[in-house]
């Protein structure tokens, strides 16, 4: 019966409306977090710039490039991938893009006979790789929303240990670079060994040291500074990824809100039609009933029929107005 269908539709509209409210709220939350995350990206810049400055000056002062973090292995047998993804889903292709890029890179390595090691940040990364049977070296979670420097530090330490022990000969960093609100891209970059050219440590050793005094020796300062540089770089990647995550989530939730709105309009239209159909059927039944009755000259019954007809017409009219 048509009335039953109407009730089902009304329930569906109610549930879509509730979903829409949730996605809308998530959209707004993500939007406000992008701004904060961008602020943190900016706030982290002075430190890494200064660290790079100091390394450049140290290299000028004759700090040799024989630190383990600067030494490239002759042959690469095993590559460590540091993968930065999110703890939560509902952010469109954000997680899959970076995870697929890493999987492709691992496949390419395998074809060259290289092994892999995975250091993951984010529940989604751990879920993805453990489901596919990859061996996970270390997995971190709980800070993809709002990473702290101490998070970056503990991650960088475990990666540096792998590298300095010689268990891996190269470390790649996979994250999502935040270019603007509208565009983010997956980046897979070499993390270790550090590129001397990138940190300005390739200045020739006999160049002018700028008259710097060093305390202690330049090489020792460099030894202390390079791990800090690696941490700062990982921290920057975590921050950019978190800004990208919020931007991706905002876009995904906006699309979901729009879809819910479309769905709601369509279902309302179908529901109104079903309602009108059921009223029309009702009227037909009453009218044919009245026809049958009119042969008996029963005034009392006629009154009852007329009243119920008026009621049906009124509700049909108000329905038309609403639709």
């Amino acid at each position, binding site marked *: 019966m048509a009335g039953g269908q109407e009730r089902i539709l009304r329930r569906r509209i109610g549930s879509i409306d509730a979903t829409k409210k949730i996605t809308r709220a998530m959209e707004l939350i993500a939007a406000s977090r992008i701004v904060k995350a961008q602020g943190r990206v900016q706030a982290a810049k002075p430190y890494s710039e*200064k660290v790079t400055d*100091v390394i450049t000056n140290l290299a000028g002062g004759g700090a040799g490039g024989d630190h383990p973090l600067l030494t490239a292995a002759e042959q690469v047998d095993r590559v460590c991938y540091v993968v930065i993804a999110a703890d939560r889903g509902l952010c469109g292709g954000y997680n899959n893009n970076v995870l697929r890029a890493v999987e492709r890179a691992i496949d390419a390595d395998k074809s060259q006979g290289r092994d892999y090691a995975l250091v993951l940040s984010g529940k989604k990364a751990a879920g993805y790789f453990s489901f596919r049977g990859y061996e996970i070296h270390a997995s971190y979670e709980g800070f993809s929303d709002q990473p702290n420097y101490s998070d970056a530090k503990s991650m960088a330490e475990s990666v540096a240990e792998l590298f300095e022990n010689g268990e891996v000969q190269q470390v790649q960093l996979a994250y999502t670079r935040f270019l603007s609100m509208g565009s983010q891209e997956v980046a897979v970059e070499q993390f270790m060994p550090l590129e001397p050219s990138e940190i300005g440590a390739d200045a020739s050793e006999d160049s002018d040291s700028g008259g*710097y005094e060093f305390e*202690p020796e330049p090489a020792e300062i460099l030894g202390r500074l390079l791990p800090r540089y690696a941490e700062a770089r990982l921290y920057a990647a975590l921050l950019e990824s978190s800004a990208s995550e919020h931007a991706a989530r905002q876009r995904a939730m906006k699309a979901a809100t729009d879809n819910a709105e479309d769905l709601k309009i369509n279902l309302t239209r179908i529901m109104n039609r079903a309602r009108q159909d059921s009223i029309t059927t009702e009227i037909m039944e009453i009218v044919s009933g009245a026809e049958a009755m009119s042969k008996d000259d029963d005034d009392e019954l006629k009154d009852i029929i007329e009243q119920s007809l008026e009621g049906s017409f009124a509700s049909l009219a108000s329905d038309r107005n609403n639709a």
Partner: protein
Amino acid sequence: MQVELVSPEAVLFSGECSQVVARTVDGDIAFLDNHAPFIGALDIGQTQLWANDGVVSLAINGGFVEVSGNSVTILSDGALASQDIDLEGAQSDLQAAEQALSVDADDDEAANAKKWAETRIQVSSAG
């Protein structure tokens, strides 16, 4: 001279100072105006900045200092101003570290933890 104290998460201090005293791994060092260019690694210890509106005391948990062109830059991933120090937390950390040292006197981590706790207590009581 211009002084900046930069942590990975923010610029903690930026302003004009007449004198800076910091503890490098080789000992305390003071910087006055127009100090010669200098790069040093900082030990766990107290750093003091003579700013225009008084002396600012900070507990530094290791870092770096660079002096060039009449400006001092301190880089540290663990710097606390005296008002931000949790004195009770520092005292309990100190006790825990001393206990660990009494078990194993060669425990470097505990020795550093002790130094960091002592620095925090010193800076907190001075500020």
